[in-house]
């Protein structure tokens, strides 16, 4: 085994028979997930699929956001993988829009893993699809560490959640490629402090591209679509 060797003798005990040998391991705890995610990414790239992993707290509007996207961009053949702790409600809502939807009921597990996505993808007809949307479990902590093989990661935050959300969940926001501020239609009623949230995002996750939308009314969504189209153009399988 190349990845482990004895690197020393423990000195924790005075008695020789209680001293162990130290084996070097140096392996990522989530290495298995990372391997499967890498396989997923290669598989999705071969299929010419744009893959978006959507994350947020419960109630930020992930399902509404995806439903709006599916309805506005019906030109993009899409499949959806929905992670939910227990229910099938979100999948039903998205299916109503005509998309092919597979539900992963995690049974209490707080995040999706790459293997779950691989299994769900097996149940989808990906041929001819351009877009695979993954609605992660509503949680801003656990899913951050799990690469699913996505092309980019969207973290959704709504105007009712408090402008300090990025400061409370930096681990998640730091992994975001895109941050979508949702429910802008009720920003005023909610007393939303836009400059404060924008400043917090700029401080915690300057790498992320930020969009302000109302998934309910559709306002602001075209700017996100332009970003998505740019991503898809890079993924496109050359004809012939």
């Amino acid at each position, binding site marked *: 085994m190349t990845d*482990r060797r004895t690197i020393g003798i*423990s000195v924790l005990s005075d008695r020789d028979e209680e001293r162990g*040998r130290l*084996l070097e391991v140096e*392996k990522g705890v989530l290495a298995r997930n990372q391997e499967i995610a890498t396989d997923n990414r290669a598989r999705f790239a071969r299929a010419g699929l744009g893959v978006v992993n959507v994350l947020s707290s419960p109630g930020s509007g992930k399902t509404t956001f995806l439903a709006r996207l599916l309805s506005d961009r019906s030109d993009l053949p899409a499949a959806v993988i929905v992670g939910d702790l227990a229910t099938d409600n979100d999948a039903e809502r998205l299916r109503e829009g005509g998309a092919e939807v597979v539900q992963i009921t995690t049974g209490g597990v*707080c995040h999706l893993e790459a293997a779950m996505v691989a299994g769900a993808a097996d149940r989808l007809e990906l041929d001819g699809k351009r877009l695979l949307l993954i609605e992660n479990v509503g949680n801003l*902590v656990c899913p951050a560490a799990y690469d699913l093989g996505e092309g980019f990661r969207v973290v959704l935050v709504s105007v009712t959640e408090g402008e300090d959300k990025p400061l*409370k969940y*930096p681990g998640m926001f730091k992994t975001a490629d895109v941050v979508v501020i949702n429910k802008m239609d009720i920003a005023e009623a909610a007393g939303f402090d836009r400059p404060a949230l924008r400043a917090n995002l700029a401080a915690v996750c300057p790498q992320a591209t930020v969009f302000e939308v109302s998934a309910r009314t559709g306002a602001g969504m075209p700017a996100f679509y332009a970003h998505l189209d740019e991503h898809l153009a890079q993924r496109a399988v050359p004809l012939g």
Partner: protein
Amino acid sequence: MPDGRAVGSMHELSIARSVVDLAVRAATDDASERILRVGVRVGAFAGVDAGALDAAFSVARLGTAAEAAALEISTVPLVCHCHDCDVDFDVDDRHGVARCPRCGVPSGDIRSGMELEVTFVEVM
């Protein structure tokens, strides 16, 4: 991260199970029967609470070669890189606001602090 604690237990348990699996595999490959100690490296922003991981490990190890093993957690600070100044810098802000100490501009280029690794296993 205090905010992670409320929803963190389930997460840390599955992380702890992976740690035990990796340790048991290393011990098995070494033909060792007993694991005394497992070392892990946890990034400050890996989304894992050290206390919760330790508690989860004490459960996950039961019934394995690591049954009596101790978990040794070393925490890695967040280190970011500033492109303008071309320097790496430690971030001690618990919210992860990574301003370059020279120019004050926040950086999203993370060089360490997100890792989650098993570093060593002590066997006998």
